[in-house]
C-alpha cells in the first residue's frame, strides 16, 4: 500500500557561513538528517518556525539545491541524476508571493504557457487551447490572457501561479506558503481551489506554512521541523489532538483561534530561537523545553515510533510515552 512519490533518506544540506573577515567559515546545517516519505495522493504539511529548514528542504525537492549528503528520490528517480526538465515534469512549485514570482513583463498567457515551451511540448498548436482550459479550471477569465501581472489582484496572480504549475500535469506540487501573502477572503478561495484541483488531477501536495490552522485544514499528514530535523510526524488528526513533542505542544498552544475571551496563551517558550550555526547540545530544543530532563542536553534524543508516526524526544524513550499530556486540549 505504501507508494511513496518522494523518498528522502538522511538528507542533509550544509551551508558554509562566513563569520567575518579572516575568520574560518562555519557550517550551518540547514537540513540535518531528514528521512521522509510522501505517499501518492496525500497532503504533507510541513510546519516550523522561520529558520528551521523547511524552505531548504523544499528547494532540494525542487532540485534547486543539491543535498550535501543523503538521497532524495522523486517518483523512483534520484534527484540530481535526473534531468532538470524531467524533474519539472513531475514536480512544480507554487511560491508565497504572487507579486514577485511572476515576470512583470510577460503576459498572463505567456507566463502560464512557459512550462510547455521549456519542456518542448511537441504540439505547439494546442498550447493556446490548453492554456485557456487551465485558466478556466483555476477560475481565471480568459480575457486576461493578454494582460500583465500588474493588472491583476493578489488572488488572481496566485491563480496564475497555480495554472502555470499545473499546465503540464505534474504529479507533485510543492506549495511554499501559498496563501500567506493574501487576504483572508482570498485565502479561502485559493485553499478551496487547491482542494478541488487535488481531487481533479490526483495531485500530491507538500504544503509548507506557518499558519497551523491552514495546515490542519489541508494536510493529511504533518511533519514538525525544528533546527533542521523533523521532531514529530503523524496523521493530522493525531498530531493536533495529542501532540507529543513539547515543541509541537508549544506550537499548537500559540495558535490564536477566533474565540473571544480566551486571551493570549503564554507558551513558556522563553528563549529565542537558537543560532543554527551554533546549535545547543543533545536535543536542540532543550533550552526552550518545559519538560527538560537531565539527559536532554547530553544525548541526542532517540527516534521513537508511535502509533501512526514518530517523535524524536527523550520523554518517550523506553515506553515512557505515558507522559503525553492528557486533557490539556480542552484548555486551549
Amino acid at each position: 500500500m505504501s507508494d511513496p512519490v518522494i523518498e528522502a533518506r538522511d538528507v542533509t544540506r550544509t551551508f558554509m557561513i562566513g563569520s567575518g573577515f579572516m575568520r574560518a567559515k562555519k557550517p550551518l546545517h540547514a537540513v540535518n538528517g531528514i528521512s521522509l516519505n510522501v505517499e501518492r495522493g496525500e497532503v504533507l504539511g510541513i510546519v516550523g518556525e522561520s529558520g528551521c529548514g523547511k524552505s531548504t528542504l523544499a528547494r532540494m525537492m525542487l532540485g534547486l539545491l543539491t543535498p550535501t549528503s543523503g538521497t532524495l528520490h522523486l517518483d523512483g528517480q534520484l534527484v540530481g541524476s535526473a534531468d532538470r526538465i524531467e524533474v519539472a515534469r513531475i514536480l512544480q512549485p507554487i511560491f508565497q508571493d504572487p507579486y514577485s514570482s511572476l515576470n512583470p513583463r510577460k503576459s498572463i498567457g505567456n507566463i502560464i504557457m512557459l512550462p510547455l515551451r521549456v519542456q518542448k511540448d511537441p504540439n505547439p498548436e494546442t498550447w493556446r487551447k490548453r492554456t485557456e482550459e487551465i485558466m478556466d479550471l483555476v477560475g481565471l477569465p480568459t480575457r486576461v490572457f493578454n494582460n500583465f501581472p500588474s493588472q491583476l489582484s493578489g488572488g488572481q496572480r496566485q491563480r496564475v501561479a497555480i495554472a502555470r504549475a499545473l499546465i503540464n500535469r505534474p504529479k507533485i506540487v510543492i506549495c511554499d506558503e501559498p496563501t500567506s501573502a493574501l487576504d483572508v477572503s482570498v485565502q479561502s478561495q485559493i485553499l478551496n481551489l487547491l482542494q478541488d484541483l487535488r481531487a481533479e488531477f490526483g495531485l500530491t501536495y507538500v504544503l509548507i506554512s506557518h499558519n497551523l490552522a491552514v495546515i490542519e485544514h489541508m494536510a493529511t499528514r504533518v511533519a514538525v521541523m525544528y533546527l533542521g530535523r523533523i521532531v514529530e510526524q503523524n496523521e493530522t488528526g493525531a498530531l493536533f489532538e495529542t501532540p507529543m513533542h513539547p515543541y509541537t505542544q508549544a506550537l499548537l498552544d500559540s495558535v490564536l483561534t477566533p474565540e473571544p475571551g480566551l486571551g493570549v496563551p503564554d507558551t513558556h517558550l522563553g528563549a529565542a530561537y537558537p543560532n543554527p550555526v551554533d546549535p545547543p547540545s543533545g536535543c536542540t530544543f532543550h533550552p526552550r523545553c518545559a519538560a527538560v530532563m537531565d539527559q536532554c542536553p547530553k544525548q541526542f534524543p532517540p527516534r521513537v515510533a508511535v502509533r501512526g508516526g514518530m517523535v524524536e524526544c527523550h520523554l518517550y524513550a523506553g515506553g515512557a510515552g505515558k507522559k503525553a499530556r492528557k486533557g490539556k486540549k480542552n484548555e486551549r
Partner: protein
Amino acid sequence: MAKPILDVENLSVDINVPSGVLRAVQNISFSVARGETLCIVGESGCGKSITALSLMNLLPRTARRSADTLLLDGQDLSSLREREMSDLRGNAMAMIFQEPMTSLNPAYSIGNQLEEAMRRHRNVSNSEARDRAVFLLEKVGITGARGRLGQYPHQLSGGLRQRVMIAMCLMCEPALILADEPTTALDVTIQAQILHLLAELRDEFETSLILITHDLGIVARVADRVAVMYAGEFVETGTAEQVFNAPSHPYTQGLLRCIPIPGKTKRGAHLGAIPGIVPNLVGRLEGCHFASRCPHVHDACRSGQLALRPAFEESHHYRCVLSPEACAENLKSGVAA
C-alpha cells in the same frame, strides 16, 4: 464611564490621486477608554493603516484629513501645528509599525534609538535615559539588556527587533499606543509572546491600545472592542464577544466563514468565500460599499447613505439595511458570503 483617552468623530481621509479623490477613510467615529484595547480589523486596502497614520498626523502630502472631533486626552489634535504634534508623538501617543526590519534605523545603535525619544521629550540626563532603556528592554523580555544597547538592528532577530520597537514605544509612558500589524512578520510562537507582552504592559501601565490587524484570531483574543472596516468605513463595531459570537454585517459573517478554525471546521471541507473584489474608492460611492459582493444584496442597498444601526445589544452596531433579526437569521442559515 470615564473620559476616553481618544475621542474621534467623523474622521475622513481623502487622498489626491491622478484619477480623482480617493476617499480612503470615510466618517469613522470611535473612542478609546484608558486601558482599553480597540482592534481595527479589515483586509488590505480598507483604510486601517491610513486611519492610524492620520491619528499620528503622518499622512503623505497628498492626503487630507478632516474630523469633527479629534481629541487626545482632551487636547484637540486637529488644531495642532507640526511642531506641537511632534511634541506629542512618541510622548503622549506612540506607534509600533509592522516591519521591525524597516522601521529601525540601521545606522544607529538600538540604545541610541531608544534614548532619543526620551531625550527629545523629557528633561533627563543621558544616564537616566539609559537606565530607562535598560529597564524597558528587560521588561519586554530581552536578557542582558545593558550589553545590547550598543548593538545594531541587523544583529537582532525579527522577534527581538519588534521587542525593541515596543520598548521604544514605552520610553515616555504614552497614554495611547497604536500598533499597526505588530506581529504579522513574526512566527506564531513569537507572535503569541509579543501579544502576551503587550497585554501585560497594557494592564501594568494602563495604556490604551489601538491594534490594527487582518488576523481575526488576534482580534478575538486581544480586543476589548472591535471595529470591522471595509472600503473606508466601519461596517460593524462592538465588543469582541458581540462581533465574534453574533456577527451581524454580511461582511463580518463572510470573513468568519473564510477561516478554518481547528476543531470546528470540518477538515478538508470547503471554506466560505467572499467573491468579487473591493470597490474602487476613487470618487463618491453610492449605497452600501459591500453591495457588489454581498449575498443578500437587493435594490435598497444600492442608493443613499447607510448609517450604523444598533443590533440587539447595547454598544453593538452594524451598517446594513437588514434588520437585526434578518441578520441573525442569515448567520444561522449560513448562506456563505
